[in-house]
């Protein structure tokens, strides 16, 4: 079962794999090393999937080195990537990928090598700052110890002076280097006239350093004799420790996103002069090429529609949510989605000229968009920070009347203790580590809000074909209902396969994968969601693949025959195709687990009611609705939402796309149509329904963790501010408390990532 699904995938991936060797694709992940003795050596970056531990790296390196022509191979377990140097005269990248796959891992061209190098740089810089701050803090602490433990008069004044100077020298790199991000951050927010989290922090560090320097070099002067270099350095190192953990969480999430973007080359189907079709890399497309685009696919280039008519979803480009009708001569934009019918287009602009870059930017924006919970936290940040500054100034003013020698320290304590790091980390740290954990378990979330939706859903609608079930590709059964005189069996099968190649529907894909299609030059190909394909052959005869009108079937006495697709000519069915359909291996267990969890599971399918009933009985579902058109599915979801239920939807096909957009939370199958994946909040990469159950459990835990974080951070601030105001909290304790509260929040969130 799983094997047959993989077989389909492999058929689909075969042209893409060959395209890996195309020079244009190669440039995306390979650089050419300076030639030595006439050899051309390429250095390719590959992303490795399926590595469990560091020992896997050696196995993959060994497998790569066995390939003839590989000069050198290095695999990094931490980065899950390989760098391979290979001799262009003796091997090709596709051979490298195959070698890795034979070793039991997966490999994809790594186009994100640049981003990873950037992350490595950022991570090194963070460790470096953290080390400088923490190591200096330890030494400053040592130099400060004598003045803490000595009795009055035990420490000679000149020795104390020497110790203070030493502390000052060691605090200098902390202030000038390690704490630099806080000062630049504060400066940036002050310059644009907004108040940020860095402002009180920078103010606190700066004031504490100046006052302590005054006390160290002019003892008994304006700032007294007490130095607080130990509190200062410790505060900075704890703060950097919190930021380091935050950065790690961010990087992990970024890696998960990159995994989802890493992909085989995008294939375009170019029509040659003789009418045949070849698969080429989209990078190879040139102005003037004629390209076929199946329904459910994205347009690879800007161009003009040559043949056919369809509706196009340009929402990614224009924000227009209603699909746009396109006829012959209409302009098509790269990255927009072909909804209805397969069409032929002429390429006008390719590569950087297209609006593709704009789409990529939009996608990034969609990915980094911040959930509503975060935004409300932002709204409170500015008033909160102003209150902090006013409180600190007020405390300093009051204390300068009561006890001028303590005024500076009370103000510094207030600034440090109220640093809202914990509050601002509470929600994002939990969401990020939950997203990363889900990505590792095979659920890629595009919107962070989906975590909230997954945890709270009451009703789950599941599509049947392709989601709960999968088609067996082996052995398509054909039932002939024509007179048997005009058409040979091979002709009918070939005709059906060539027509099916125009669609990405699971049934059509299985039909097309079953055998090679004949060379019929189809015209006016249209795909009607829920109905099937319709096209004209060169003679102008209308052929259909998919549903057949119920009246016609009744008339011919065929309505009792259950098939997946009819091949009809001029409305008269010639043959029916039937596939063995089987439930996905984990479907029953996953549905049962969700029902135990209190989720109402319902089937929504466009398939015949009888078959939907059968699958529903197998799964023990009472609510199974079959024979639904896309708008009927949409109505069912809307009705549930009107009853106040929080609705989630899992689907895979073009006809599910509107429903996926309507549902509160939506997941698409990884092997589903591109448009379904684009509409959904998340993608089940491994197509395993059990991932939904696990994702829901994780989402519930993340909500709990988020609540804990918020309560903790708020309670901490509420308790410590009064203590600092009345002068019971010295700056070092304030720094420790602040950093501990941030660390508690981050560590609590990191529990989710396990």
């Amino acid at each position, binding site marked *: 079962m799983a094997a047959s699904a993989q077989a389909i995938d492999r058929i689909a991936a075969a042209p893409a794999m060959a395209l890996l060797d195309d020079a244009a694709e190669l440039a995306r992940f390979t650089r050419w090393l300076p030639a030595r003795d006439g050899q051309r050596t390429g250095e390719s970056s590959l992303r490795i999937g399926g590595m469990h*531990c*560091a*020992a896997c*790296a*050696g*196995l993959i390196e*060994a497998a790569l080195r066995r390939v003839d022509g590989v000069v050198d191979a290095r695999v*990094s*377990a*931490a*980065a899950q990537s390989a760098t391979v140097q290979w001799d262009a005269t003796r091997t090709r990248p596709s051979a490298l990928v195959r070698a890795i796959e034979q070793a039991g891992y997966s490999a994809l061209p790594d186009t994100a090598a640049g981003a990873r190098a950037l992350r*490595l740089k950022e991570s*090194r810089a963070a*460790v*470096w700052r953290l*080390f*400088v701050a923490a*190591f*200096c803090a330890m*030494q400053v602490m040592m*130099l400060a110890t004598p003045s803490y433990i000595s009795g009055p008069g035990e420490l000679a004044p000149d*020795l104390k002076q*020497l*110790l203070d100077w*030493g502390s000052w*020298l*060691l605090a200098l*790199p902390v202030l000038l280097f390690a704490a630099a991000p806080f000062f630049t951050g504060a400066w940036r927010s002050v310059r644009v006239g907004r108040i940020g989290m860095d402002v009180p922090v920078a103010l606190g560090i700066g004031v504490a350093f100046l006052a302590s320097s005054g006390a160290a070099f002019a003892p008994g002067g304006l700032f007294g004799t007490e130095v607080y270099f130990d509190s200062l350095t410790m505060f900075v190192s704890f703060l950097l420790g919190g930021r380091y953990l935050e950065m790690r969480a961010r990087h992990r999430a970024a890696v998960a996103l990159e995994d989802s973007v890493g992909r085989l080359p995008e294939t375009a189907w170019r029509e040659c002069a003789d009418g045949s079709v070849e698969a080429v890399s989209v990078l190879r497309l040139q102005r003037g090429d004629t390209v076929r685009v199946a329904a459910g696919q994205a347009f690879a280039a800007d161009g003009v529609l040559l043949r056919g008519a369809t509706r196009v979803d340009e929402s990614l480009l224009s924000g227009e949510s209603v699909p746009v009708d396109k006829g012959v001569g209409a302009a098509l934009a790269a990255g927009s989605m072909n909804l209805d019918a397969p069409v032929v287009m002429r390429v006008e602009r390719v590569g950087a000229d297209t609006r593709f870059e704009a789409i990529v930017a939009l996608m990034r924006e969609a990915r980094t968009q911040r959930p509503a919970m975060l935004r409300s936290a932002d709204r409170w940040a500015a008033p909160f920070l102003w209150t902090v500054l006013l409180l600190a100034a007020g405390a300093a003013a009051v204390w300068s009347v009561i006890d001028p020698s303590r005024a500076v320290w009370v103000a510094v304590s207030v600034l440090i203790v109220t640093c809202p790091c914990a509050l601002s980390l509470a929600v994002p740290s939990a969401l990020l580590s939950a997203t990363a954990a889900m990505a590792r378990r095979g659920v890629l979330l595009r919107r962070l809000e989906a975590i909230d939706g997954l945890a709270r859903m009451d009703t789950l609608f599941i599509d049947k074909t392709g989601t709960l079930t999968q088609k067996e590709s082996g052995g398509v059964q054909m039932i002939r209902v024509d007179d048997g005189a005009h058409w040979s069996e091979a002709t009918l099968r070939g005709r059906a396969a060539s027509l099916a190649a125009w669609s990405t529907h699971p049934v059509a894909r299985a039909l097309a994968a079953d055998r090679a299609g004949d060379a019929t030059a189809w015209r006016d190909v249209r795909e009607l969601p829920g109905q099937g394909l319709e096209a004209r052959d060169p003679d102008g005869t209308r052929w259909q693949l998919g549903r057949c009108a119920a009246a016609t079937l009744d008339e011919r006495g065929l309505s009792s025959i259950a098939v997946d697709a009819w091949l009809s000519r001029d409305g008269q069915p010639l043959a029916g195709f039937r596939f063995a359909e089987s439930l996905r291996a984990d479907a029953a267990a996953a549905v049962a687990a969700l029902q135990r969890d209190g989720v109402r599971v319902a089937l929504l399918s466009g398939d015949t009611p009888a078959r939907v009933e059968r699958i529903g009985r197998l799964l023990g579902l009472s609510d199974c609705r079959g024979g639904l058109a896309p708008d009927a599915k949409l109505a069912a979801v809307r009705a549930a939402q009107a009853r106040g239920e929080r609705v989630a939807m899992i689907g895979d096909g073009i006809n599910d796309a509107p429903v996926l957009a309507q549902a509160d939370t939506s997941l698409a199958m990884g092997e589903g149509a591109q448009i379904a994946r684009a509409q959904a909040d998340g993608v089940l990469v491994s197509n395993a329904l059990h991932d939904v159950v696990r994702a829901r459990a994780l989402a519930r835990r993340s909500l709990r963790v988020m609540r804990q974080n918020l309560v903790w951070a708020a309670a901490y601030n509420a308790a410590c501010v009064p203590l600092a105001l009345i002068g019971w909290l010295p700056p070092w304790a304030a720094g420790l408390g602040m950093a501990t509260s941030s660390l508690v929040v981050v560590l609590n969130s990191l529990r989710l990532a396990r």
Partner: protein
Amino acid sequence: MDILYLLIPLSTVLVLGIIGVFGWALHGGQFDDLEQHGAQILQADAGSVDPCQGP
């Protein structure tokens, strides 16, 4: 206790020196991947053994 007047400045300079050494190691990439090199010993064909240590 006069030696303290020498040792305290000395220790401060030593600390700065140690930070410099750590910075060199960090930027040389020694901390980029802490697990992988430990696992190399588990591989059968991990390369030649140091002949000086052979039996």
